[in-house]
């Protein structure tokens, strides 16, 4: 009997914040790979503190629906889930896999996995996001791809994750150009058109949920729109480039597969569910 707990930030203000966690949980639930699939939140309910007691299994795979290693994944989650003896993953900032610990209040064995954002399969989700926003399953030839994140200001590892995936996707040679861009440091997303020669540029923000950054800041900074409330075209023309802005990568259905893969890497038996999630045949009802 094993359970999957998906830990996400959530919000007191923005109802969209927890949507990816709920939707990916439903997708994974539908595969039947785990006896229980439970969501847990820092700002919503069940809170991190109380999520484990809602899960009947002795063995729990805990996957943070976060982009990078750092404050939330290394301090807040281990503390709030009361993971005894947590000392870190022994990671270089993008290499966390799992740590097996015991929860102080419930005695459950918790396999605490690295965040979804640094898993190698996240590169595929970014590419899938580019395919879905352009409507072209073979997108790449003659097209530039920008992966966008926070800079190092808030968290050094958040920039590392962005660069990591940009490098991996570039190495595949599918897109003409691949560039990591940031919100608060060079190279900045504001100057997106300066960094590409391709006319068509797909911009994928490496964020879990849509919210202030992905729906207000970035579209305005790139010049897709003067006022986010008026929306923008996809693609939007900016300085002779066509910008295909994708919105948060975390809402892409394929991310559910990365969540399950995180648990599988930590030892969970997930059967054919990875294939099913990759094929997208697990149904989900949107809230």
């Amino acid at each position, binding site marked *: 009997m094993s359970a999957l707990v998906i830990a996400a930030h959530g*919000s*007191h*203000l*923005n*109802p969209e914040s927890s949507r990816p966690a*709920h939707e990916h949980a*439903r997708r994974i639930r539908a595969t039947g790979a785990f006896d229980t699939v439970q969501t847990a*939140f*820092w*700002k*919503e*309910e*069940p*809170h991190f*503190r*109380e*999520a484990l*007691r*809602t899960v*009947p299994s002795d063995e729990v795979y805990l996957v943070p629906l976060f982009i990078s290693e750092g*404050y939330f994944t290394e*301090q*807040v989650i281990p*503390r709030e889930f009361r993971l005894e003896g947590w000392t870190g993953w022994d990671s270089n900032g993008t290499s966390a896999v799992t740590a097996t610990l015991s929860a102080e*209040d419930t005695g459950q064995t918790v396999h605490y996995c690295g965040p979804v954002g640094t898993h190698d399969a996240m590169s595929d989700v970014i590419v899938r996001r580019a395919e879905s926003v352009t409507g072209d399953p073979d997108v790449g030839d003659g097209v530039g791809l920008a992966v966008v994140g926070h800079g190092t200001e808030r968290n050094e590892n958040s920039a590392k994750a962005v660069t990591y995936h940009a490098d991996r996707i570039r190495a595949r040679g599918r897109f003409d150009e691949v560039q990591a861009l940031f919100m608060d440091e060079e190279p900045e997303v504001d100057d997106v058109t300066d960094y590409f020669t391709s006319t068509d540029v797909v911009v994928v923000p490496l964020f879990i949920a849509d919210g202030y950054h992905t729906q207000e800041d970035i579209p305005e900074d790139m010049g897709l729109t003067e006022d986010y409330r008026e929306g923008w075209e996809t693609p939007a023309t900016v300085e002779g480039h066509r910008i295909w802005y994708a919105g948060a990568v975390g809402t892409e259905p394929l991310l559910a597969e990365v969540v399950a893969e995180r648990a599988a890497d930590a030892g969970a038996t997930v059967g054919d569910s990875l294939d099913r999630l990759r094929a997208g045949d697990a149904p989900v*009802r949107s*809230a």
Partner: protein
Amino acid sequence: MDREPVEALREAAAAGVEYDGLSASLDGETLQVAVEDSTTTVDDRRLDDLPEPFVPYVRNWVYWHETAPQRPAFRAFLRWLERANDGEPSAVPERYDALETGVTRTWGQLLLTARLSEGGRRRYELRHVDDRDVPAGDLQVHGGPNDAETIARHDDRDRYRPLKTAPTLRSGWLFPDLGPDEVLSVVSEFYPATIENWFREREGTLDVTHYREAAERQTGRYRSVSELPSEALEWAADACCVDSQCLKRREWDETADEPLDVPRGDGPFPCREPCSLFVAAAKEWTSLEDEATRTYEIELTPSERDQLEAIVDAVADGRVDEIREADLGDGANRYRARYLRAKRFGDVESPAFQETDRTHGSEEDTSD
């Protein structure tokens, strides 16, 4: 799950069965069954062959041991729902009579009804307490936990609900026919972890974390909340945690030895530590409490003074939307408030509140 009931009972009887007034044991190959003051023996017989008075007892045992979820918290909750209190062994026939028409319980704003269905199984209906007397046909029918998540997300004015246990659940929906596992998932979606914490409390194992301890744990942006003064903590609990704002019963205090005076609430499920919304509010109040007071002078008629109070009350009680457009007798009426603003607060050159004296100095912002 669909084993012949007598067969299932025979298997369990080897270790002895004592449940809700039913006793069963094995005497060699012979199954001995007793209820109240009658006893019977069963050789190869099936449930249908048992004398009538035994049947509901056996079906009741089967439901709780073969059909209902075995997890202790869930089982206890479902038994609480139909008022099957352990230690009242003779209650099965009476309980079955009650279950024929339906046994109803309230859980926050949820109204749950347990009914008897085929073969002694139970089905559960769930609706909003305010819809108690609304005909089922007038309610929107739903089926499972995903629907509950959607209903719980916004209030009836379509505003996002950041606190699931706020008494702002929208009404007008119905889950007419849920099995035991489904009703538990739906309740857990409306009110996460409430069943588990209610059960822990019943068992005497609820792990309460009091405010000071919870505040000590905070880091980053919330580190400052440990500096919230005791007096302000009372006001904060009064603002957030009373029944008109949150249906959890507050079990935490300032510390185990320093209870707050604010009423805890009367709901069935406990609040075991300050929630994230409370901590976020406490952060705000901690930084506001950092300011020293000053003395202001304002010129008002007695009615205008009353009106200021009426406005604060209307906002604090969430009554603003209920005040009718033309109800000029209500001090918090929009026209009345606009009039007061035009008369007293409209002039930037001479503000309504005049500072008369500065008492204390320090008020630097310590929030991080």
